[in-house]
């Protein structure tokens, strides 16, 4: 039995492209095709409801794609070893970002049906706010942001694939930090420096975009926690999706001998931690608004609690925190693939419900189930997202075999 810690006995073998059945990819493509047809029908027949649904589904999959980009950047910036086996899966999610950028362009056509500031039904007291929410300026910055995110994702993925190619040729792939000659510090690799810059850029642009996408649904209401709340959802759902894909791939034998139980334990622990982060941000925002009880602020929660929406909030509390927290507390369950699939799916579903709960109460005072147009949009975006991710994984190895520290990650000697 080869023991842990011993990097000498571990041989990294290229597991090759992930075994993803062509049927699954065709299914995603079919779902996208059918979904897009009905989405277009819905946007013309029922514009009001369908555009709100478009916002929900567009944001949900954009957030998942961004989560892949964010987790990759965080991995490099922290110089992490434990997350190397998951990095390629996070990178595969960024393959959706160009499609997300295109759907941002589509979203611009629905501004008048979604946002009161675009429809001209609200007036701001400040000239700066009126200028900020000008039609062209808002559309322009959202399109530019999503295009730049897609570009950053492309840079990360390209460098990572180049590293793999170099490893296959047998070339040196040591892109580790270099020691400063005659000094104490280390110069981070290009990836480390680029990630640090990207994280700063991400923090600013994503906060602004969260305000534009969602907080401006009620343009005269505001909170400084809003972007953090959306980001907390992104982090939790992103970890859940990476966990889900890695478990499914390992069950099909696509991860070779690289992904081991202790990697699951680490990623599940991370999901556990960020389920706490999610409830912390959500509850903090709720508690402060509830306590102060200003009519101008409380209207936000009032809208989202009365008329049956309160049950959705209760569901979110359980699905995003209580259940993941209690279940993942157990070390044995963090190694149980079926339990991990169940928890990750629950968290992913809850993130969709969260966005639905953020968007829909603005136009619907009473709880409504998603209608055919919203389902069609979900199908369309799910198809596009699944097609982009599975196509990438079916062509590339689902583990970054070229990473020089992969062997340390497999051996678990960071522990």
């Amino acid at each position, binding site marked *: 039995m080869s023991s842990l810690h011993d990097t000498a006995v571990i041989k990294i073998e290229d597991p090759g492209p992930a075994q993803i059945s062509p049927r699954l990819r065709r299914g995603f493509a079919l779902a996208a095709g059918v979904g897009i047809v009905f989405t277009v029908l819905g946007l013309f027949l029922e514009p009001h409801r369908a555009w709100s649904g478009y916002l929900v589904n567009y944001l949900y999959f954009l957030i998942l794609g961004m989560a892949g980009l964010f987790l990759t950047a965080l991995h490099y910036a922290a110089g992490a070893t434990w997350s190397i086996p998951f990095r390629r899966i996070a990178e595969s999610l960024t393959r959706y970002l160009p499609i997300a950028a295109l759907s941002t362009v589509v979203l611009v056509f629905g501004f008048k049906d979604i946002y009161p500031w675009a429809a001209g039904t609200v007036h701001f007291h400040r000239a700066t706010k009126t200028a900020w929410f000008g039609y062209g300026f808002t559309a322009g910055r959202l399109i530019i942001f999503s295009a730049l995110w897609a570009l950053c994702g492309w840079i990360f993925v390209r460098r990572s694939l180049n590293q793999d190619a170099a490893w296959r040729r047998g070339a040196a792939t040591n892109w580790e930090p270099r020691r400063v000659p005659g000094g104490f510090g280390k110069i981070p690799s290009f990836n480390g420096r680029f990630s640090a810059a990207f994280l700063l850029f991400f923090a600013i642009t994503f906060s602004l975009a969260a305000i534009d996408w969602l907080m401006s649904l009620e343009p005269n209401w505001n909170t400084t926690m809003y972007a953090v709340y959306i980001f907390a959802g992104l982090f939790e759902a992103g970890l859940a999706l990476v966990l889900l894909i890695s478990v499914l791939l390992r069950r099909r034998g696509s991860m070779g001998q690289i992904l081991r139980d202790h990697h699951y334990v680490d990623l599940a622990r991370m999901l556990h931690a960020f389920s706490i982060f999610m409830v912390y941000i959500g*509850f903090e925002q709720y508690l402060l608004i509830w306590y102060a009880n200003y009519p101008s602020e409380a209207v936000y929660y009032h809208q989202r609690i009365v008329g049956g929406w309160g049950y959705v909030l209760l569901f979110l509390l359980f699905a995003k925190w209580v259940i993941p927290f209690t279940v993942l507390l157990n070390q044995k369950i963090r190694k149980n693939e079926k339990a991990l699939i169940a928890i990750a799916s629950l968290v992913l579903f809850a993130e969709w419900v969260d966005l639905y709960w953020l968007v829909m109460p603005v136009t619907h005072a009473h709880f409504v189930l998603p209608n055919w147009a919203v389902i069609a949009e979900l199908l369309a975006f799910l198809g596009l997202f699944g097609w982009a991710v599975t196509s990438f994984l079916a062509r590339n190895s689902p583990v970054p075999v070229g990473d020089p520290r992969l062997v340390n990650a497999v051996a678990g000697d960071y*522990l």
Partner: protein
Amino acid sequence: MPKAKQPAVMALFRTPQALLDAVRTVRERGYRGIDALTPYPVHGLPEALGLKVSWMPRITKTFFFVGAGLGFYFEYWAMAVTWPINVAGKPYFSIPAFMPVTFECGILTTGILTFLTLFAADRLRPKPSFKALDPRITNDRFALLIPTGFEGPAPATRLLEEMGALEVRELHV
């Protein structure tokens, strides 16, 4: 109550890998009650030693629920039963407002009681000085202890020297 000291041998190893191999071999030879001392947690060592899952997490969980429950009950009793005060028109029994204090009570109780339970369970107590088995165990050496009650120290010493121990010593623990 201090227990009577047992005769044992202690071997020092240079690497965690050597220690892990030695632990596996020694256990295969049938030695029980062995213990390992390392400068930092060695991955896979608890499994190799055959240690059972500790009961501490369950105790900790119990302490948390007791502490949080008592904190919550105290808030209810203080705010809604003995001295109801109207705060900004909120109900006397306002669960959201009680949550932060409930959480803090749970954490405080858990922290203190787990700490005390751990010390009691390990029979640790404040002492003016501890005599370390070997100071190098806190730095770069990995120690394995084998009790040698019945057969004397010779066979265990021989085995450990075969396993490549840097040094084997007889002692009483």
